[in-house]
């Protein structure tokens, strides 16, 4: 777990190191950045200055070239005039004859043309004395002294020359004269041609023009004048300065001064305004002038400063961005660091909590020993199992000093845990009260399956050992119990008179009890692991069939099969077999319980033979009976047919006799007279009796044929019901009826009901002549058998006729005294005999009669 924890730790730099690196970086940036900006500024300044210089140089050169070109053209103009032969001759003519108007006019015309064509301010022709001969448009009459000096200088040099800038009194303009001497054919100067130029119109714009827009750039032309420098043109920053501003040569840093002093090229100095400027200084050829092209340093460097500022700003912003980003990244990393640290810590805490919980809540008793064997801590299962109190054992109990372990020789084994890191397992039985300070009661022995395992620290050293203890007392007890049970089971199997054996799925014998040895002849050692020996080639198919039936989950109960003993004699046996399962529930074989039924079968065979003989006799008897039955059936059918004929054919004539006698009485009554009518009545009465006789006879004959269904019958209730049926309601008060409670009888309900009706109606009929008829109904016991009776106090009978009493149509009284057909008691007799009972009567003339009967529980014989 420790290694895991380390592996999970992210690699972090020391925060102090990060801070140090961070500070150094900041210092470097703080120094480097301004230095860089300064360096850049200097570089840029230098480069820009050079650029400006080269620009100034170019401009100055250009201007000088333009001035020179302009001056050449002007000289050309002067030469054109001064060398014109005709003009020279005309001038000579005019000089000769000053009053001649013609030549003077010509001269003025030429001068006009020149002035007009080339835009000179004026074109003047003077004499060698400097007096004006003619001028364009005749404007000029007299020249200023400066101009006359120029003429004399030009005439003395004999070549074309420019004058200096000059002004005329009362005129703001600044002029420049070009003087060309005019010579006659002999080469003698006769006149001078003066081309006067207004500088503001031609030269100054040229000088002042600047090729790019600039707020401070200008070009100026200077000339030395004594110890000073004179500015010849209008200055940009100082109006009306032309030919007026002079600066002494002692002002060394002035570019104009430097120009006078002979400096040519780029120069940085301070101009007439005392402003720092960059300048280019050049002499103008052909003139005593110097040209200074300059621009303010500030203007020139403005772009540099701007660029530097921009660069500095961008750099600063980039730096700030970098700082912010770095700070953010740092903070983010720092936060992640803390989060991760927190996660790691909480994971660690959780894993420790988990470890504690696993230890504490483990259902297995655990305690931890240090490397010296001392008890450190225990979990709750340990407290429960060993009933140890922390104060009794922590730091006190020593694993190596436990006398029980020493006596069992386990101490050296346990020491190996610490020495070699092995895991030791042993089982001890001990009284768990040994550690409690107050040992009371009887010992509580527990068997503990103990495992001692080493616990290593991160470096792999064994610092602790954990002692797991599992209470296996019940398990051991169960094992002993199991052993006892299996020994008992084994004893039962071995002493069983039934052959009990098992074989596996392949039919190899697994067990074989003593009874099997006795029954089959093979001893257990002979058959174990061999094929079931009693199976022969003839019976192997049957055996396999039965075996697979049982293995597939079926059961065999009391199956009778035949096998062969070791001595070769056949054995009949009844087997019951069931599948054998292993602890997983898989069928591993078959258990069979076998009874030797060889003797029983022999006995059964004899019985079967006797039975067969008996059955043959029964069949013979049955045949005879069936024949008798058939005969009976035939006679029954005949009887039925006879009854039908009687019923149908005997009644029809009776009906005719009755009918027609009645018609005779109805239709011819008056003719018959009293005696005739009486005789008719006699006929009708007898006809009706005949009809009644037929009905009774038919009813009697039906009794023998009706089928009987025996039910349990409440004789008391049935007798009462019969009485109510027989005696109309009006007559019931006249009869004294005594009905006792009678036992139930098993009989046919309809037949028995008819019997009661017949008996009671007989009793009522024969006692009807008594003043007070008394009828008694009841029963008495004759042994186990109830004897029912109906007694009356009626006419009675003579006992010598008692045999006739139950015959059909037998009457003991005249029709006159008691009506009746003589069938009632015959029907009673028939019903009782059909139930297998007995019926008899006792009586005495005029003393009443009693009829007794019995109904056996079961049918004994058919009546």
């Amino acid at each position, binding site marked *: 777990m420790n290694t895991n924890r380390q592996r999970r730790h992210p690699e972090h730099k020391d925060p102090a190191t990060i801070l140090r690196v961070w500070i150094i970086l900041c210092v470097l940036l703080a120094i480097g950045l301004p230095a860089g900006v300064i360096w850049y500024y200097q570089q840029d300044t230098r480069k820009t200055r050079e650029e400006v210089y080269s620009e100034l140089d170019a401009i100055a050169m250009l201007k000088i070239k333009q001035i020179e070109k302009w001056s050449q053209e002007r000289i050309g103009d002067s030469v054109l005039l001064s060398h014109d032969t005709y003009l020279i001759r005309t001038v000579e003519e005019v000089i000769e004859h000053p009053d001649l108007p013609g030549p003077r006019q010509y001269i003025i015309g030429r001068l006009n043309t020149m002035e007009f064509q080339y835009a000179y301010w004026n074109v003047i022709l003077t004499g060698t004395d400097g007096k004006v001969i003619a001028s364009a448009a005749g404007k000029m009459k007299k020249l200023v002294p400066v101009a006359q000096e120029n003429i004399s200088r030009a005439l003395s040099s004999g070549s074309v020359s420019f004058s200096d800038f000059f002004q005329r009194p009362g005129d703001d303009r600044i002029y420049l004269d070009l003087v060309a001497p005019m010579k006659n054919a002999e080469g003698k100067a006769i006149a001078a041609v003066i081309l006067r130029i207004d500088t503001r119109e031609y030269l100054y714009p040229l000088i002042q023009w600047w090729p790019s827009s600039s707020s401070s750039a200008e070009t100026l032309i200077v000339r030395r004048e004594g110890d000073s420098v004179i500015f010849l043109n209008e200055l940009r920053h100082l109006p009306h300065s032309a030919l007026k501003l002079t600066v002494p040569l002692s002002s060394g840093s002035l570019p104009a001064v430097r120009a006078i002093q002979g400096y040519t090229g780029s120069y940085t100095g301070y101009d007439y305004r005392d402003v720092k400027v960059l300048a280019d200084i050049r002499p103008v050829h052909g003139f005593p002038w110097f040209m200074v092209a300059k621009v303010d340093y500030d203007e020139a460097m403005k772009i540099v400063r701007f660029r530097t500022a921009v660069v500095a700003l961008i750099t600063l912003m980039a730096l700030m961005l970098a700082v912010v980003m770095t700070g953010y990244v740092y903070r983010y990393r720092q936060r992640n660091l803390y989060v991760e640290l927190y996660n790691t810590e909480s994971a660690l805490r959780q894993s420790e909590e988990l470890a504690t919980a696993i230890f504490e809540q483990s259902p297995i008793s655990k305690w931890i020993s240090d490397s010296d064997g001392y008890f450190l801590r225990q979990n709750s299962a340990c407290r429960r199992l060993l009933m140890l109190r922390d104060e009794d054992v922590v730091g006190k109990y020593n694993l190596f000093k436990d006398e029980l372990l020493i006596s069992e020789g386990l101490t050296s084994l346990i020491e190996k845990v610490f020495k070699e890191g092995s895991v030791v397992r042993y089982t001890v039985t001990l009284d768990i009260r040994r550690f409690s300070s107050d040992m009371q009661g009887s010992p509580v022995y527990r068997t503990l399956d103990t495992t001692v395992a080493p616990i290593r620290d991160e470096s792999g050293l064994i610092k602790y050992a954990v002692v797991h203890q599992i209470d296996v007392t019940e398990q051991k007890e169960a094992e002993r119990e199991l052993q006892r049970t299996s020994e008992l089971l084994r004893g039962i199997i071995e002493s069983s008179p039934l052959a009990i054996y098992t074989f596996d799925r392949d039919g190899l014998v697994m067990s074989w009890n003593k009874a099997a040895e006795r029954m089959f002849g093979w001893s257990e050692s002979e058959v174990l692991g061999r094929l079931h020996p009693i199976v022969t080639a003839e019976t192997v198919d049957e055996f396999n069939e039965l075996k697979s039936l049982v293995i597939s989950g079926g059961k065999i109960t009391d199956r009778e099969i035949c096998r062969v003993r070791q001595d070769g004699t056949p054995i009949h046996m009844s087997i019951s077999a069931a599948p054998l399962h292993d602890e997983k529930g898989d069928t591993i074989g078959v258990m069979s319980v076998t009874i030797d039924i060889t003797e029983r079968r022999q006995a059964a065979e004899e019985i079967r033979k006797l039975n067969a003989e008996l059955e043959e006799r029964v069949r013979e008897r049955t045949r005879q009976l069936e024949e008798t039955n058939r005969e009976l059936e035939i006679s029954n059918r005949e009887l*039925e047919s006879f*009854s*039908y004929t009687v*019923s*149908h*054919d005997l*009644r*029809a*004539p*009776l*009906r*005719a006799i*009755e*009918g*027609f006698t*009645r*018609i005779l009485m109805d239709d011819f009554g008056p003719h018959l007279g009293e005696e005739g009518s009486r005789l008719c009545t006699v006929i*009708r009465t007898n*006809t*009706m009796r005949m*009809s009644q006789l037929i009905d009774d006879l*038919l009813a009697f004959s039906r009794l023998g044929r009706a089928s009987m269904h025996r039910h349990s019958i409440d004789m008391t209730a049935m007798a009462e019901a019969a009485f109510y049926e027989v005696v109309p309601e009006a007559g019931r008060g006249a009869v004294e009826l005594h009905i006792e409670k009678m036992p139930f009888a098993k009989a046919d309900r309809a037949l028995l009901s008819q019997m009661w009706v017949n008996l009671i109606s007989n009793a009522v009929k024969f006692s009807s002549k008594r003043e007070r008829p008394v009828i008694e109904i009841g029963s008495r016991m004759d042994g186990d058998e109830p004897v029912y009776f109906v007694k009356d106090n009626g006419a009675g009978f003579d006992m010598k006729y008692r045999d006739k009493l139950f015959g059909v149509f037998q009457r003991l009284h005249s029709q006159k005294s008691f009506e009746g057909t003589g069938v009632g008691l015959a029907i009673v007799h028939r019903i009782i005999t059909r139930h297998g009972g007995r019926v008899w009567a006792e009586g005495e003339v005029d003393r009443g009669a009693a009829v007794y009967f019995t109904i056996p529980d079961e049918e004994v014989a058919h009546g």
Partner: protein
Amino acid sequence: MDSWDAVEILLVEDNSEDAELTIRALKKKNLANRLLWLEDGEEALDYIFCRNRYAERNIDRPPKVILLDLKLPKLSGLDVIKAIRADDRVRKIPIVIVTSSREDPDIQAAYDMMVNSYVVKPVNFDQFFEAMSSLGFYWLLVNQPPK
């Protein structure tokens, strides 16, 4: 009788005395005006199925009731019932057994052949008159014959 088709009661009875008594009983109640008395089963079937003597009879005008004795010469009463019940044209004619026999097998067999009633002729004259006249009254006046 003008037409065989006007018969309302067909009495089949071989015993002439019984027949006379029956007709007398019905006449007394004025119920025998359209009564035809035949003496054996074969003639009864001839009539029912319009054969021989009765060939011109309309089979679709059956009697309202047949009073039939079971014990008849030639064909028995049960044979007559069987023949009638087997023919779709006439099987719905009400048949009342009027006989002297109260023997179970006859009653049972007759009802098995779907007779409409089974009456045992009483020997006593008053009872006989009462039975016959109420029988005629019921079948001619009370009962609604099949269409």
